[in-house]
């Protein structure tokens, strides 16, 4: 047990690097929340624009969605940070990570919202129109409230998965949780800071993972015994 405790749970080193790593934890949460806000709002807006069925916008959105849904997150982060400066666009590590993750979530959210809008039965549109509502009132008052309810479970899972990508910011030296832990580990020549970071990731994500399990249970393919 000696080497395990000294290496992974060294109290002296943990005490020394605790403040720095906690700072990284807050930055991780900040990036995560910004990513979710950006991704969900952009996704909803793009799905609404798609509902207008205006062809040029449709094509542009499809291209955006396909690019950011297909490319690995790390490739996008690295591209924004290391390639864009050649086009005279110098992004900070924070901006590169948040924009990349936000764009990826936006792409998935657009797809999910758009599918959810289509999943609302055509009869809802017809009924609302026969009551004299215009296109936008039907969309915003009748269809979207139902579509958002359909979208929430899938969106939650996707948002949690993409939020875990905040750790990728370490590749562009964003001083978030993992990055702080890695530099502390290099300086102290001891992996205890990494243990601490791992524990903090669990503190953040275990409740989310359990919540997503619960959401899956109430909305996924229904277990047979409940049907």
């Amino acid at each position, binding site marked *: 047990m000696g*080497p395990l405790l000294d290496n*992974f749970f060294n109290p002296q080193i943990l005490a020394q690097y605790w403040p720095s790593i906690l700072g990284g934890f807050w930055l991780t949460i900040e990036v995560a929340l910004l990513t979710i806000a950006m991704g969900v709002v952009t996704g909803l807006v793009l799905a609404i624009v798609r509902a207008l069925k205006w062809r040029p916008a449709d094509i542009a959105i499809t291209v955006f969605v396909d690019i950011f849904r297909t490319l*690995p997150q*790390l*490739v996008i982060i690295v591209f924004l940070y290391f*390639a864009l400066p050649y086009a005279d666009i110098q992004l900070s590590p924070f901006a590169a990570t948040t924009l990349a993750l936000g764009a990826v979530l936006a792409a998935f959210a657009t797809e999910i919202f758009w599918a959810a809008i289509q*999943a609302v039965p055509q009869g809802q549109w017809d009924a609302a129109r026969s009551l004299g509502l215009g296109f936008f009132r039907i969309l915003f008052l009748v269809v979207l409230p139902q579509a958002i309810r359909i979208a929430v479970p899938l969106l939650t899972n996707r948002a949690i998965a993409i939020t875990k990508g905040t750790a990728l910011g370490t590749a562009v030296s964003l001083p978030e949780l993992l990055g702080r832990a890695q530099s502390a580990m290099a300086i102290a020549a001891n992996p205890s800071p990494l243990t601490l970071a791992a524990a903090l990731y*669990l503190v953040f994500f275990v409740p989310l*993972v359990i919540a997503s399990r619960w959401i899956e249970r109430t909305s996924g393919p229904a277990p*047979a015994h409940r049907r």
Partner: protein
Amino acid sequence: MDALKLFLDNFADWDSLVRIWPLLWQGLQLTVLLAVVTVPIAVAAGLLIAVVYSFHHKWTNVALLVWIDLFRSFPVLVLLILIFYGLPFLGVKLPSFAACVLALVLNYSGYYGEIFRAGIESVPLGQREAALAMGLRPLQAIFLVILPQAISRVLAPLASNSLELVKTTSIAALVALPELLRSARVAQEQTYNPTPLTAAAILFFVLLWPFARWVAKLERDMIVRRQ
């Protein structure tokens, strides 16, 4: 026109591309190899988890859920860093390829396990009872009767999870495994322009786009059908 020329010289410089192509080609092969090795292992591990779970032994199931949620809660990069930089302090030094496979399998087998489990639970209990009454053994009942029905019900999340797994192999770049992204970064240090990164992004896109389209279609159908 000047701007366009500047852009092309920087981001799509043909001479640079020809020079660094062998490096990128090797990187692409390693990316494919990593995917081809990791996906089957993770699928098999997930299937094992779900099959063991379906026997409904109380304590094994509690243990399995803890295992799944624990490894799903870590960002996979954190697992990779723990394995690659942390374990050597305990005298366990894995080569970067093995470390990547292990990190990806630990993380993604949890997701696969959850997906298969939901699929198995969506098949009515009567199917199992009927299979057992016909004289099939419990394992035969699962593999010959339950799983074929289960998999067709969860095909969309299965495919989506596999796509995410293949995309995530790019984190291997952060432990110096020369897959496609890493190769592009190395090449960029030789060309001093972002052409290698552009080329790598395009290669990733070409490799993954057909699969991403198929996954998107499966997910859309699932959302629309479920309503």
